[in-house]
């Protein structure tokens, strides 16, 4: 398999992630779209690590995975707090900071 196939798949996953992030109003799906984008970047990192025969891409992927887990934990606890106050998971309802 060629490197370009992996990069094309990575770009596709990133596109789907951006699409979901901008389009969906459900906070849970928005968080999942962010995870999707992080995973797309991971795939590109690992593919290029294979290309250069250099494990630093794997080290970066390791960091990205750890940060994504932290991000998911904090994002979901923010969601819980907002849901307690607003009884909603729609990002359109979260505009207290704007008002």
């Amino acid at each position, binding site marked *: 398999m060629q490197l370009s196939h992996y990069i094309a798949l990575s770009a596709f996953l990133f596109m789907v*992630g951006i699409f*979901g992030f901008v389009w969906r109003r459900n906070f849970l799906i928005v968080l999942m779209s962010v995870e*999707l984008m992080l995973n797309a970047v991971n795939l590109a990192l690992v593919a290029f690590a294979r*290309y250069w025969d250099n494990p630093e891409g794997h080290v970066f992927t390791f960091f990205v995975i*750890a940060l994504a*887990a932290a991000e998911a934990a904090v994002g979901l606890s923010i969601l819980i707090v907002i849901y307690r106050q607003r009884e909603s998971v729609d990002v359109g309802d979260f505009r207290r900071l704007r008002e």
Partner: protein
Amino acid sequence: MTGLPFYIFALISAIGAVLTVTRKNPLTGALCLALTMIGLAGLFLLLHGYLVFVLQILVYAGAVVVLIIFVIMMLNIREPVVRLQRLYWKRALPGGVLSLVLLYLLWRPLQNIPDFPPSISDSFGTVERVGVEIFTRYAFPFEVLSLVLLIAIVGAVVLAKKSED
């Protein structure tokens, strides 16, 4: 190396990704996200990323998706709230434009990407090789990462705790 395993895993992750953002019910979305993660883990295996493969299964499919499902069940979102989550295809325009712009920007560079080199060092991607890299050159970022995780844990607990008053 035949391309069949690549296409199988690529198809799994691509379908999972599309289903993740198009399903109405977030629980279905989370399960499709797990499917995407497993497909990507297979791709990491094909790319000789053995440590990354294990981490992907453990942390993503094992922890992050389970955490999301846990929160969905904990919130116990009432039925009317779920039904209000209609899909507005009209609003898909900005996201569609953004991803098409990305496709346009990437189209030309994608044509010029060379192929993988045929040979690869034996220890590539093993826990040993990546571990040595993490604990020597990247030891400081690794320690900072532990701090970040600690802060995230404390922050998540403090945020999600019910206030006393």
